């Protein structure tokens, strides 16, 4: 079969996006991916049909449809694929990239990408204010550029944890916990740029490389033993993508870091709670990187707490709707779907009769809190980051 020029260059892009990209040719057309995709039922071309169209030399049809912008890069299709095709980072990101290069980007997403280019964060905030969340923390949070001394742990805070007013309270909670544990840590502050992972999965690979390069240079300026991060997207980028660009550092999600210190933490958790807690696995911590147990171990360590699992949990967890550019496509996706993935998840949390929906990703607190406002019967459901639950149990 003669592969059209456009198709060949597209296959090259898929190969470039991921090491196992050529597995795309092994598709069985079983349809698992389209069935498990949370927005598959709304797409003119869900993943398996995308592959069928590629094989039928109808790539142009794919580019005309805007199905791809419903993809929230949640890795559900990738996890369900019996042929182990890296659909999320390969096919899906590459089709988005094709559209980004053609300048065919929904407006909301365009703003986030432009802001990331200009300010190093998708929210369009001043880079100088990146550490403002830490202003009232004592002892003072060390900003590496000012402190000018080595630290044990470099905390990569991330965009939403730095700037989003709701998530800042989570960020402050973790800072207080680290202080209480006596961890020698510092942050990059204005030297930190967006990790770029969601921009990459939204198809802006050049922007991802630019941001990774800036962070790589910032890491190189300072001395530390390891990185921890509040943001599973930053975790995924620094763990799996930055090394391909020659930027290699040991990294842990904060839940892994704290779970390793449970012996020290447990005696500090003095306040008993009668709460029933359910835990939402963030896509980029759980499904994409296999970190399922440390967050649960932290929740279970709080005296009196019971942990209830939602219908979808672990590898089968449901996306909050924020990944792969979804955070910046809420209006677009609402117009297409008239449903929100976050509301679906909140309904599952209600089914467990939980008092608290616990999260471990900075995208999720605001998304689920908003959803709880619109889902019937969810007014009493509290959405809390695990760091907030731990701090409350410590009573400090």
């Amino acid at each position, binding site marked *: 079969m003669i592969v059209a020029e456009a198709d060949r260059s597209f296959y090259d892009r898929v190969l470039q996006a991921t090491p196992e990209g050529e597995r795309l040719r092994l598709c069985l057309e079983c349809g698992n991916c389209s069935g498990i995709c949370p927005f598959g039922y709304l797409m003119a071309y869900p993943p398996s049909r995308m592959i069928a169209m590629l094989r039928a030399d109808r790539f142009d049809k794919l580019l005309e449809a805007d199905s791809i912008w419903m993809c929230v890069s949640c890795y559900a299709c990738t996890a369900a694929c019996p042929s182990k095709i890296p659909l999320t980072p390969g096919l899906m990101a590459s089709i988005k990239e094709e559209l*980004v*290069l053609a*300048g065919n*980007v929904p*407006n909301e997403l*365009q703003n986030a*990408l*432009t802001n990331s*280019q*200009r*300010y190093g964060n998708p929210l*369009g*905030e*001043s880079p*100088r204010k990146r550490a403002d969340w830490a202003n009232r923390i004592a002892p003072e949070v060390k900003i590496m550029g000012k402190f000018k001394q080595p630290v044990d742990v470099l905390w990569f805070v991330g965009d939403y944890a730095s700037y989003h007013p709701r998530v800042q309270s989570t960020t402050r909670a973790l800072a207080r916990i680290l202080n209480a544990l006596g961890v020698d840590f510092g942050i990059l502050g204005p030297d930190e740029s967006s990790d770029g992972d969601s921009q990459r999965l939204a198809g*802006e*690979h*050049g*922007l991802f*490389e*630019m941001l990774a390069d800036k962070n790589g240079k910032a890491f190189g300026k300072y001395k530390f033993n390891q990185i921890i991060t509040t943001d599973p997207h930053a975790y995924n980028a620094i763990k799996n993508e930055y090394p391909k660009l020659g930027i290699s550092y040991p990294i842990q999600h904060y839940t892994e870091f704290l779970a390793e210190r449970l012996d020290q933490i447990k005696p500090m958790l003095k306040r008993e709670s009668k709460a029933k807690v359910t835990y939402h696995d963030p896509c980029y911590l759980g499904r994409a990187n296999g970190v399922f147990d440390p967050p649960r171990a932290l929740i279970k360590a709080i005296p009196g707490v019971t942990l209830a699992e939602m219908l979808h949990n672990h590898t089968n967890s449901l996306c909050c709707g924020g990944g792969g550019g979804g955070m910046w496509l809420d209006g677009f996706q609402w117009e297409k779907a008239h449903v929100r993935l976050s509301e679906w998840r909140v309904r599952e949390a209600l089914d467990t009769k939980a008092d608290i929906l616990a999260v471990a990703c900075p995208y999720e607190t605001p998304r689920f809190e908003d959803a709880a406002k619109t889902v019937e019967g969810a007014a009493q459901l509290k959405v809390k980051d695990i760091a907030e639950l731990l701090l409350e149990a410590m009573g400090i």
Partner: protein
Amino acid sequence: MNIVVLAKLVPDLVEELTIDANGNALDSSFARLIINEFDDHAIEQGILLKERGGGSVTIIAPDAEGADDVLFTAAAKGADRLIKIKGDFSNVNNHALARAFAKVVSGIKPDLVLTGVQAHNDLDGALGPLLAELLEMPYIGYVSAVSINGDKVLIKKEYPGGLLAEMDVQLPAILGIQAAEEPPRYVAVSKVRQAMKTSSIEEQDASNLDPCGGSAIGRMFQPEASSHATMITGSPDEVAEKLVGVFKELGIV
């Protein structure tokens, strides 16, 4: 069709602005510059005209931090020629800027000059009319659509109250763009990087930055509060009593 677009850089309001020690200008050492939003629309309109009817688009920007990025981004969108005017533009007014632009633009002999209708740092009038006077060309501002029709352009001009006018303008002419017909497009970082390799920026010297005719700034300052709200505190009964007292004092009851 030879189209020229002027791009001016202005302080980015994402950063807090500070006044310099003399108290009559912004402290440029803290300001971060960004393309004037209306000029971004002017660039988009220029590219749209080229895509529809052919011709070439030249972008001219005064030398400032970020000017190269603005020019290369425009090239990635489809601009053909990039010119940077060299000189110290850190504290020039629009009269001086218009004179610098006029010299470069007249050498290009354009059919159409597009500029943003305004900028938030226009303290001595908008750039377009000043330039039109120097180049002896007609000027129309608040333009939100342009189509080329032989040696004329048909434009839509916005008026307050939602009114629109359609006008024919004889070329060459200068238009102050209020909004391009499409929102300014996104260009991928890789395309801007490619443009940096494939296109080049011509540099021309600003012969004389003459600010004559502009207003002189006596004092520049942050908004100053002239009075403050009074907070009434206490129990509901006490607050009510105090409120009644205030009403009586003001002669309301």
